[in-house]
């Protein structure tokens, strides 16, 4: 029992148990109903009717003469009443309670039932010594008067002291043997039906559960290290389609999450390894010849640059982590977009000047939005810095506001000949850089990830479009932020 309890419930087990239980129960019910009905039909409708017909024959032989009532009975014509083994026995009782006639088959025995008046025929089983179980009918009737047209039936006016009572018994042995044989056949057929039912049920179960088994086997076979596996049922069924689709979607998401995590870890490692290699080389080479003051002085400058870049990367990573964990608090306040853009452009001015990048600011003055000032600063700064760094020399960054479905959109457009359509879906990934060599250690590829995370927190949408080599990145503010 403990072993049984220890096992986990199974659909197959539950269905098999139910199948056996309900099939067995149905078979039992059918069996009892059939055998009961059979006995009732055979006994009451056939045996008892036959018995009554036999009784009626005796009734017609019972006649009333002037001398009294007589049973005109000839044993040679009714041998069933002659032998002690029967199979039939009768007694005819006169209205005054005296016995008129008893069949030869009874011998010294008496039928063990009362022989009083009965308005309706009464049937019952009796045990007759030497004959075993018998079926008996007791009926009262009016003896036919000689030459009178009386059929012997009782009427409402018939008094008990006028009626003759006939007790007629017939051995049940043959009938019982027949019903026993029939019952056996019925039960054998039902047991056979049960076995067939179980075999068929098992086959149906197997067939019905095959897609589930298929699904189970495929899910079990999924290697946690190989997340590219997808579930494809050999025989797709409607009931499992939603589950399979959902599982495949989850697997897909899991795989891309793992790939993203691996790529992220690898990118972090790479982004840290290179500046660490620079730092270590600077320190070790510098330490070999500290007297070379010119070299050591140059190295100090390089060390400062490297540490600032690493500091920036760590800050950006922390910022992203805060966004991911919900630790970044949003403080809404009125933000003047023109001021934010002005500050961001000033910070990028040196690079813009060096690369001859121009700003075409078409934004209306005094455009106020309700947002987080610090986050908006960072978003605009990153977008302008990206445009200034990656646009071709001498190009122009255009800033303009638009209205998209009743929402304010801030659009940044700059030439981006290096980008392809496929890059648009990846450019917000952490550490993504168009140049796979990641040359140019000033940017680690986190700027657009921060833009995306901050925009998400601020309820903004981002749309990107590449048209004729120009990239347009639109920040779509949430409704009613003006």
């Amino acid at each position: 029992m403990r072993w049984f309890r220890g096992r986990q419930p199974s659909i197959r087990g539950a269905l098999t148990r139910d199948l056996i239980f309900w099939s067995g129960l149905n078979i039992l019910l059918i069996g009892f109903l059939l055998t009961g009905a059979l006995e009732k039909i055979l006994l009451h409708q056939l045996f008892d009717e036959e018995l009554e017909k036999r009784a009626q024959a005796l009734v017609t032989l019972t006649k009333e003469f002037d001398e009294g009532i007589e049973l005109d009975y000839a044993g040679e014509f009714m041998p069933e009443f002659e032998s002690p083994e029967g199979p039939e026995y009768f007694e005819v009782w006169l209205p005054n309670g005296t016995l008129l006639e008893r069949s030869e088959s009874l011998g010294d025995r008496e039928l063990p039932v009362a022989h009083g008046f009965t308005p309706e025929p009464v049937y019952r089983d009796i045990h007759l010594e030497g004959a075993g179980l018998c079926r008996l009918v007791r009926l009262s009737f009016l003896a036919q008067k000689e030459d009178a047209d009386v059929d012997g039936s009782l009427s409402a006016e018939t008094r008990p002291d006028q009626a003759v009572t006939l007790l007629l018994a017939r051995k049940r042995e043959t009938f019982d043997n027949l019903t026993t044989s029939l019952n056996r056949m019925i039960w054998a057929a039902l047991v056979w039906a049960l076995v067939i039912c179980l075999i068929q049920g098992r086959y149906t179960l197997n067939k019905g559960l095959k897609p589930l088994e298929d699904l189970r086997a495929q899910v079990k076979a999924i290697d946690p290290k190989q997340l590219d596996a997808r579930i494809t049922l050999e025989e797709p069924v409607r009931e499992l389609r939603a589950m399979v689709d959902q599982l495949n979607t989850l697997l897909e998401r899991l795989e891309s999450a793992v790939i993203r995590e691996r790529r992220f870890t690898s990118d972090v490692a790479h982004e840290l390894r290179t500046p660490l290699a620079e730092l270590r080389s600077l320190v070790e080479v510098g330490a070999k010849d500290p007297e070379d003051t010119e070299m050591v002085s140059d190295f100090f400058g390089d060390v400062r640059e490297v540490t600032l870049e690493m500091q920036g990367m760590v800050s950006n990573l922390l910022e992203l982590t805060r966004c991911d964990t919900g630790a970044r608090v949003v403080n809404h306040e009125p933000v003047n977009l023109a001021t934010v853009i002005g500050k961001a452009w000033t910070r990028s001015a040196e690079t813009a000047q060096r690369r001859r990048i121009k700003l075409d600011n078409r934004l209306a003055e005094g455009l106020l939005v309700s947002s987080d000032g610090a986050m908006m600063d960072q978003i605009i700064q990153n977008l302008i810095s990206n445009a200034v760094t990656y646009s071709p020399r001498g190009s122009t960054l255009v800033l303009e506001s638009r209205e998209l479905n009743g929402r304010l959109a801030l659009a940044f457009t700059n030439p981006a000949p290096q980008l392809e359509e496929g890059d648009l879906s990846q450019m917000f990934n952490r550490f993504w850089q168009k140049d796979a060599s990641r040359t140019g250690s000033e940017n680690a590829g986190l700027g657009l990830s921060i833009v995306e995370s901050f925009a998400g927190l601020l309820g903004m949408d981002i749309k990107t479009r590449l048209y004729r080599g120009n990239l347009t990145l639109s920040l779509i503010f949430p409704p009613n932020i003006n």
Partner: protein
Amino acid sequence: MKLLIIEDSARLQRTLKRGLEKEGFAVDTAGDGKEGYAFAAAYDYDVLILDLMLPGMSGLEVLKKLRARGFKTHVLILSAKDQVQDRIKGLEMGADDYLIKPFDFDELVARTRALVRRRYETKDPTIQVGTLKVNTALGKAYRGDHEISLTPKEFTLLEYLLARRGRVVTREALLEHLYAGYGEVAGNIIDVVVCNIRKKIKSGDEPSLIETRRGFGYVIP
């Protein structure tokens, strides 16, 4: 010994160049794959120090193209890629060594010297001529137990001649090996360096180790 560093990080490139030069190597640098490949194909370098993630052409492509064209220059890959598969791939494509960033500078120097020795098929880093012993792994020269103080250029020239012992090396070859990429240098610079070496390694009445073959160059017999 002449090296080419192909590395896209300008700071690392600068640092390694200065450090390796102080160790006596003549060092050229390239910042992208295409430029690096052009340099490696045009000049005879003892060792190439090659980054893998390079703009223009990846380090593996540079290596593949060089090997496809029959260049046998020893290549040391210097990469932030630390996975075993990356190392296997690099070595299978013809690299001779693989060093993961960040690295110990002395280890880089030692591995580079080992590759140089492999080029000249000398497994023993010590070369002995008479009582003069030169340890190419340590970058040091000894007369008996006494260490001789040589500048990096002097050591490089001495090591170069010892690696080609018995063969006359022209002044042009020495100039190319020691000062390629330095722009204009004095015409007699090689003679000055040889003269300095002779003074430092001279022992009593022994004849000079480095012989002059007029009109040809120098040789260590």
